């Protein structure tokens, strides 16, 4: 269960949220500039809210009043940003294994086979296609055994044809690995297909919140 109850002021822009997320996949839906990426950054610890709390399964990641602000490396939140940001000086294997902690249950083989990146493991990052980079980034985030997965428009830079091939991977991650996901998109079809719960954002505020059939017309 994820609690997002905070305000974040950045220059002129003000983001305000008060949500409790219980489903497997929550989609943040809205046009660009509505604050979706800012929310992900705040949850990951890359940006600091002005006040409020962020909690994950009862664990406080941020609490303004208690002066709690866990640094990103202590939050166990996996992040696949829009620009993917694979480490250019490492090959695929080293990228994927970067966040692996000792004694965790997830193995490289299982994650790699779910995302079908086994043949890519020894390749240099620069030689990957857009879709391959997405899958590698996903694998890298998963290998750190996160308690929560944040995906920022994973299919935005990918062509239509490829989209239909990657979405099943995301569904597999949702179904087989059981990690809760917050998923950002401005595409209705993705939201409808993937989400248990949708939060529609406009100008930094949640204007609607509920199951996809109700919220997305």
């Amino acid at each position: 269960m994820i609690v997002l109850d905070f305000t974040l002021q950045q220059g002129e822009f003000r983001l305000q949220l008060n949500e409790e997320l219980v489903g497997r996949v929550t989609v943040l839906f809205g046009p660009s500039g509505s604050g979706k990426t800012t929310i992900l950054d705040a949850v990951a610890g890359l940006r600091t809210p002005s006040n409020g709390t962020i909690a994950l399964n009862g664990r406080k990641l941020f609490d303004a009043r208690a002066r709690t602000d866990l640094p990103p490396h202590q939050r166990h939140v996996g992040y696949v940003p829009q620009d993917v940001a694979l480490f250019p000086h490492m090959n695929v294997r080293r990228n994927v294994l970067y966040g692996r902690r000792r004694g965790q249950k997830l193995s490289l083989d299982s994650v790699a086979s779910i995302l079908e990146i086994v043949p890519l493991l020894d390749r240099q990052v620069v030689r990957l296609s857009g879709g391959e980079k997405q899958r590698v980034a996903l694998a890298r985030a998963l290998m750190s055994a996160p308690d929560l997965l944040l995906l920022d428009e994973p299919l935005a830079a990918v062509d239509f044809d490829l989209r239909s091939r990657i979405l099943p991977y995301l569904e597999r991650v949702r179904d087989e690995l059981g990690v809760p996901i917050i998923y950002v998109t401005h595409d209705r079809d993705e939201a409808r297909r993937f989400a248990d719960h949708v939060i529609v954002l406009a100008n930094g505020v949640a204007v609607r919140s509920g199951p996809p059939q109700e919220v997305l017309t």
Partner: protein
Amino acid sequence: MDVSQITIFTIVTALAATTLMVPPGLLLAWLLARRRFPGRVLLETLVSMPLVLPPVATGLILLLLFSPRGPIGRVLATVGIDVVFTWRAVVLAMTVMGLPLFVRTVRAGLEQVDRRYEAMASTLGAPPLRVFFSITLPLALPALVAGAVLGFARAIGEFGATIMIAGSIPGVTRTLPVAIYSFAETGRDGDALLLVAISAGIAFAALWLSNYLSARAGLRA
């Protein structure tokens, strides 16, 4: 033959100085590139001082600090370490004069490293020190190498501060530049020119190595 002694002495002390520059230089470069803190501008200015002050002036300041009656020299003397007029003064002068160049170059390189990579590493569970050594530093490696080469070249050519704090003692503190000056002053022109040729050769080799390494780093990425 004293020409080879002078050459080897200069190279060894310059290498030592370059090595000494790296830990504080990296720290300073990282602080100035990544952190905001009170007194940051002051720190930046202090680090740049040896670049702007006449080298003799820097030498004088070092002399005041490290002479047996100076604040630092006094402490070192109690453990039997003499600095002024010894090889330690040579390494000290080289390090102080080369450090600002090293910091500048590395800082610029660190600022070029995309902070998104550092952010990603952080979310993957890497604490700040691991992020620095596994992500930031490798991505800034060409700048690190260039900075070290620049620091080395500056060390090899260092004269003004060296002559003030290390003196010109044949066989003990005569580096290539100091020897060239001494030989020219006393009419040993042939020897002076020989040393000039050697200095030029070392500088050439250092620059060649730096360019070669940069090209290789470029190809790898």
